[in-house]
């Protein structure tokens, strides 16, 4: 059911907010053990908040999300509810503040079902690096859910929430959405406040939405977007009602296909599905334009250098002194925090921290960090070029569909290369939405991404919705 329909049902009392939340909580209890999409389920608070929402609905004062049960990724701070980042380091961390996005949801009296599982500190594309155990794909529990917002995507795909907040630093909303057959929206950098999102890579991080459709994703984005004085990188530009163009005619729209995104590295079934989506658009009157993003070959390296450099710095605060895990070993400050960090972080996080410090350290900074920042400027320019002749860009969301757990998560280089389709969007700060455009021979979903001009969420959601209207989705098996 669409969120707007759910809203109508709640408002017309066809369904009660408490009844609705019980339906989800029961389903979580019954099904989540097989996919492990939640780290923390907020049962009591959810029921209490649903009751409160109902009284607001009864008073006729409902906002769009009043009484709507959502999940929130566990790297987004929630006051008095532990926020772990799926790390041993923050296993017992309970913030005294809400992320701005969460605060805006609370102002609408949404219902928080729980905090979703993820790759530790959002570093990964499989949601297998979680300290609390990996997430499984609702279409096939032997497969990964993607990551890092794997729990968020799985929670939506398995109908364990109405929609979910995730975070996207290099594809972490879009790729798991593709793997789990749902819609993932990464807004323009600065559209959603990062306050309260535990930073991975500040210049790339953006809170995003995972939902059942582009329209639903826009529905939630309308609630959480906007300038926030708590985040200096928050944008003052208004994106308006992002669902405004949904249902509008997209005839004549120019859709660019950058050829580098359809190279040999991309799985043939994926390519085929995305190309047939392009055909669909051509058939409804869009113009398909072959374009090029020549610097894509540098993108993965540049992305990993920038994101790891920022991560190394951002994660330095985890020393066990102020909060989080603290080792019993080591008598001196340096020894003690080195053991704390050894015990508190998983292998992938440690690799990123080492890589980041390598990229920043004296003697290597110019060769790595600085060159990566140059590539970033180049990629921004190349996107500008493309958008001088295109309205949106169509690419695959990931080179493959969801793979079997254990297949490649332990090979960092393979994992990094798998981010090729998504990272440039973060590098350039652009909005993008991923939706399902087909299924592979094993029935696993294939994702395509529509990338828009900065602050033009409206157009990509409209173009995405147009496809979703005619695409026949297969339900997840779980």
């Amino acid at each position, binding site marked *: 059911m669409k969120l707007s329909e759910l809203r109508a049902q709640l408002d017309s009392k066809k369904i009660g907010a408490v009844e609705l939340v019980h339906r989800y909580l029961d389903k979580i209890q019954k099904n989540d053990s097989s996919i492990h999409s939640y780290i923390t389920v907020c049962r009591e608070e959810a029921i209490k908040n649903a009751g409160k929402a109902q009284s607001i609905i009864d008073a006729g004062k409902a906002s769009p999300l009043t009484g709507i049960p959502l999940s929130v990724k566990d*790297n*987004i*701070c929630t006051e008095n509810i532990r*926020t772990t*980042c799926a790390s041993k380091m*923050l296993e017992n*961390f309970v*913030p*005294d*503040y809400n*992320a701005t996005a969460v605060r805006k949801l609370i102002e609408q009296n949404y219902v928080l079902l729980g905090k979703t599982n993820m790759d530790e500190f959002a570093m990964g594309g499989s949601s297998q690096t979680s300290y609390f155990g990996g997430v499984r794909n609702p279409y096939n529990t032997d497969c990964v859910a993607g990551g890092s917002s794997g729990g968020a995507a799985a929670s939506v795909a398995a109908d364990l929430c109405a929609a979910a907040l995730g975070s996207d630093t290099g594809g972490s909303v879009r790729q798991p959405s593709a793997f789990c057959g749902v819609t993932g929206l990464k807004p323009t950098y600065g559209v959603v406040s*990062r*306050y*309260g*999102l*535990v*930073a991975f*890579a*500040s*210049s790339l991080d953006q809170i995003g939405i995972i939902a059942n459709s582009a329209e639903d994703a826009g529905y939630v984005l309308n609630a959480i977007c906007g300038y926030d*004085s*708590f*985040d*200096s*990188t928050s944008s003052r530009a208004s994106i308006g009602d992002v669902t405004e163009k949904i249902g509008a005619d997209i005839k004549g729209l120019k859709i660019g296909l950058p050829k580098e995104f359809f190279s040999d590295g991309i799985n043939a079934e994926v390519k085929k599905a995305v190309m047939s989506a392009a055909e669909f658009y051509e058939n409804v009157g869009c113009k398909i334009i072959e374009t090029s993003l020549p610097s894509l070959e540098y993108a993965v390296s540049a992305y990993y250098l920038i994101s790891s*450099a*920022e991560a*190394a*710095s951002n994660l*330095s*605060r*985890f*020393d066990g*002194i*102020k*909060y989080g895990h603290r080792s019993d070993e080591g*008598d001196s*400050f*340096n020894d003690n*925090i080195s053991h704390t960090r050894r015990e508190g972080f998983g292998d992938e996080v440690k690799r990123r921290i080492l890589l980041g*410090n390598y990229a*920043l*350290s*004296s003697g290597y*900074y110019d060769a790595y*960090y600085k060159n990566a920042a140059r590539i970033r400027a180049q990629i921004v320019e190349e996107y500008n070029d493309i958008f001088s002749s295109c309205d949106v860009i169509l690419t695959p969301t990931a080179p493959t569909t969801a793979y079997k757990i254990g297949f490649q998560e332990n090979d960092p280089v393979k994992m990094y290369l798998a981010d090729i389709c998504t990272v440039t969007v973060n590098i350039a700060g652009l909005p993008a939405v991923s939706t399902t455009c087909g299924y592979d021979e094993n029935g696993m979903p294939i994702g395509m991404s529509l990338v828009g001009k900065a602050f033009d969420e409206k157009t990509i959601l409209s173009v995405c919705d147009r496809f979703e209207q005619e695409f026949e989705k297969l339900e997840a098996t779980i």
Partner: protein
Amino acid sequence: MKYIPVMGLEIHAELSTASKVFCSCANDFGGGENTRVCPRCSGMPGTLPLINQNAYTLAARAGFALDCRVNNYSAFDRKNYFYPDLPKAYQITQFEHPICTDGFVEVCGGRKIRINRIHIEEDAGKLVHDDYEGVSMADYNRCGVPLIEIVSEADFRSVDEVLEYVEQIALRLKYAGVCDAKMEQGSLRVDVNISLMPYGSEIFGTRAEIKNLNSFKSIKRAIEYEIERQTEILESGGKVVQETRHYNDNHGDTKSLRSKEEAHDYRYFPEPDIPPIFMTDEQINAIKADMPEMPHKRLIRYTDKYGLPEDDARLIIADKALSDFYDKAIEVYPNYKAVSNLILVEVLRNLNDSGISAENLQFTPKSFAETVKMSENGVISKNAAKDIVKILFKKDRDPKKIAEENGFLMNNDTGALEAVINSIISQNADIVQSYKNGNNKVFGFLMGQVIQQAGKSANPQLAKDLLTKKIMEQEG
């Protein structure tokens, strides 16, 4: 001595803002541990820095105070290092694009000390060591207190130059309202880089850095000790090690702070949580237009234009409130020297005695100026003027009224005075005779008698003239 010391200074000055630099906690001094701390300044996950506009304004003012260029474009960087007083494990500072560059201060009669840059950064917290337990306790109240760092070139060649520079910087920052420059409270801290260069050479030696000097005395002693230490090393054929040294005030010496990691690698990179900051020319000019006159310019005005002796001028200028008071007083009564004299003699003494600071003076510059004017015009005596100042210190009133009520108005009635003098002369015939015989010393005694009987209102000059005349008229 065979060597010239070559020194450069880094001065950290705390900005007088109401809130901290990246969060809204109060920027204050004292108070209980961790009472001025929030999720932002304690580095809680997910929190973000929000730059204080006033910190920017004050840093720009510091720039103008030190004849720097204030840049349109400036940006923050992260300086990464682990230390328990630094909760984020990085300090937000300005590395590549500081707000101010290229300034200078003239010292010791015209030598120019170049200022390389002024940048904004955040202070760290405080550690209290518990030797018994072998641990430290971290208090983050000071985390995020806004600082500017003023970095000079290695242009100093003597201790005197260093001391005068620090003195000038402290005074200019106070004048600009940037920093209260209370070294004893740590709101102005000095790091000195020092190396020795053989006479005739132009190649600098290896430098040592002495950190966190917080008094003029310690700056002087630390430099002198360091010159001696490095001289001894060089004399004995050794090499000075590049390192950071700590000055111990009790021993008057410096000690190496050698840690495990000899060379710090701070891994600076652009702070991704704060966009670069742009100031338009209009904004920069508006800050410039709002600058008060700087003390070194004021000194020239006081000496060249007003003809005050340099020492007097410096004494007044050393206290901005006092100097502002002086400027307002001379607007009312432009007798520069007379106003200055009464300030230096009577106001300073009363300030010292009462412990009041000049900005809290109870009386207006106008009352003061009128007091000086009355004294200069012979309406009251110099002594009476001092007495009026004393009274003004308690409460501001019209000085004329004070003079009237206390009988300070000088009596220019010759008749009354003549009567007193006649009576004194007749009562002290012997002494008058002795004076006439050439014993000039006794004149003072006679004058004393006259003033005592005539009262404070007697015009001393008039009394003196009359007394002399009357004595001379005596038959002898």
